[in-house]
């Protein structure tokens, strides 16, 4: 088992190099000219300014040269400077990443809870109204575009009912808590500021639900299928014959047996959300990686695009690795062999 994990760890650097290379190459196949992001439009006809800009940003060098320089900088932790913000891309991302992670964690809490509860209920009450309802909920979750469900729910709960705040992470009038984890909910609690905590939580609710809804469908369908399979196995009958209650039979015996595949799909959903939160972040003006990526792409801000791609890819890799390790740990049959 440790051999397997070791193999995965050894493969990591190569995968990272692959991601970096692809991220770098993607920028070279785009048609757009990054100079438009750097040089003001009136100055475009001034060859001196253009040449100076090219030299400043290294655009006058050949592709392999630029690639080697980028790799060299990356080794020392430097992701380059954004064309737009003129700040270090690493700094920008470090500021944006926690917002995305907070959103994704909250979304996963929604998605996992909904997915498991609905999946178990749908399997237990197969072909009943509950089952059909859960199926419909899953179908909407995974097929409704986020801009549709997000805007719709924003309209209902924020505009019409005024129960929840509008877009954003925090009321603009409230002070930001000192950044420790970058999660507003946690930082505000650490700072003992309940007002900020409550406001951050209310802001988080809707985008997290919208995002969680998209993955809850996949999870509930998988849990349902696995529960149906497990519930028909003889050890479930054995548990009933022992005198265990239905709750115990379903949760302790059956659900626990579906945890291994469920854990896997939860892990992959998490990885998917880190890179898939773009639309939700845009709709809810969430200052995370996704909206940063959108801004960067619009402006052809190459260093930012590459940086975001690398960090997103890395997050994906790490999540999948953790998922696979958990898979091994949770499965006695694999763990012990």
């Amino acid at each position: 088992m440790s051999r397997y994990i070791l193999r995965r760890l050894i493969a990591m650097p190569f995968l990272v190099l692959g991601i970096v290379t692809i991220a770098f190459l993607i920028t070279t196949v785009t048609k757009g000219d990054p100079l438009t992001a750097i040089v003001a439009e009136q100055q475009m006809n001034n060859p001196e300014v253009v040449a100076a800009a090219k030299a400043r940003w290294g655009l006058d060098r050949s592709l392999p040269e630029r690639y080697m320089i980028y790799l060299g900088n990356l080794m020392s932790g430097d992701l380059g400077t954004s064309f737009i913000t003129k700040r270090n891309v690493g700094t920008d991302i470090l500021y944006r990443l926690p917002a995305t992670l907070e959103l994704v964690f909250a979304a996963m809490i929604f998605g996992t809870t909904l997915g498991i509860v609905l999946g178990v209920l749908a399997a237990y009450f197969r072909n009943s109204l509950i089952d059909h309802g859960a199926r419909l909920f899953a179908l909407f979750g995974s097929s409704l575009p986020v801009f549709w469900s997000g805007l719709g729910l924003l309209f209902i709960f924020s505009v019409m009912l005024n129960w929840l705040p509008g877009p954003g992470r925090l009321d603009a009038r409230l002070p930001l808590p000192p950044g420790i984890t970058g999660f507003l909910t946690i930082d505000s609690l650490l700072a003992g500021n309940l007002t900020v905590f409550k406001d951050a939580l209310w802001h988080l609710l809707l985008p997290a639900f919208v995002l969680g809804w998209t993955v809850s469908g996949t999870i509930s369908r998988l849990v349902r299928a696995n529960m149906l399979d497990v519930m028909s196995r003889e050890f479930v009958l054995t548990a009933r014959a022992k005198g265990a209650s239905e709750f115990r039979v379903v949760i302790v015996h059956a659900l626990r047996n579906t945890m291994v595949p469920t854990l896997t799909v939860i892990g992959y959903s998490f990885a998917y959300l880190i890179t898939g939160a773009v639309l939700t972040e845009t709709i809810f003006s969430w200052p995370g990686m996704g909206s940063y990526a959108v801004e960067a792409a619009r402006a052809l801000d190459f260093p930012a695009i590459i940086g975001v791609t690398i960090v997103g890819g890395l997050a994906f890799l790490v999540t999948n690795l953790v998922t696979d390790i958990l898979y091994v740990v949770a499965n006695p049959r694999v763990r012990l062999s």
Partner: protein
Amino acid sequence: MSAQLSSVRSGAAEMPGEPLLSIRGLRVGFRKAGSQFEAVRGIDLDVAKGEVLGIVGESGSGKSVGMLAALGLTSKNAVVTGSVRFKGDELVGKPAREMRKIRGARIAMIFQDPLSSLNPVMTVGAQIAEAVRLHQRVTRKQAMARAVDLLNLVSIPQPERRASQYPHEFSGGMRQRAVIAMAVANDPDLLIADEPTTALDVTVQAQILAVLRSLQERLGLGLVLITHDLGVVAGHADRVAVVYSGRVVEQATVSELFADPRHPYTRGLIASIPNLEESRERLFSIDGAPPALGSLPGGCAFHPRCIHAEARCREQDPPLLDLGGRFSACHFATTLPPFHGASLAAASLETGSLTP
């Protein structure tokens, strides 16, 4: 252990003369996509305290469904009617909460497939300890100690180590031992074993049956042994109930049944026991196949396959007649010609247990 166990015994009055388990007219119907059919069409049988009752019958005859229904374990689409009395206490229609107090405590049941009878993600010890804790007020630690004792009781070597292992680390025979240990964890009065050895190879089968029998004798269990194998019945049961398409068609002591079967179906079964000495081939087999449950023939369900069938058999379904302590559901139970297959069959059964 006995000090703890005796406190669990329910105070249900044990009336003298009343059998441990008494099933009368048990019927189980299944609703399936609008249609309805009966898998069990009226089972009558008794199990006395400390007695071994064998139940034999072809696949699909309703042996499992009947016993599951007695314990309230049939699926949600099943309709169960009739009467199942355990120590005088009616079980059919009993609230689920009260059935749970009986299941695993007073009546235990084990199933055919030891490979899937245990939860793959729980250690064997934890599963046995769970059975203990479901019915006894003991600590986790005490329950675990009891689990180790129980593994020892069913002759599993190194029980402490084994208790902390997962089912996939056990062989098939060991798993079935563990399942048996779990079943007797609360010192039940009745154990229903549904084909406990069918999935195991022959040498292991004998060991498991020996374990079951020794436990049954030591703990004074009533044992219901469901099987396809008349050899098992001959070797281990006191009495036999023969089931055909959802009904008990004959019930008698083992020696009576083999010496003088009073139902043509029983005769066919006995005559078709493979003869070990001559060849593996069956000496005889009953012509035809058991009827599909949805479309039973009128009259006696066995008549299309019966060599003694007459007009009456096509019209009237014979009731289970009392022939003086033994029962048969055949119109000609008392007038059937003498049976000659018995000596042949007896010769092929390894055991000499036919002669009491």
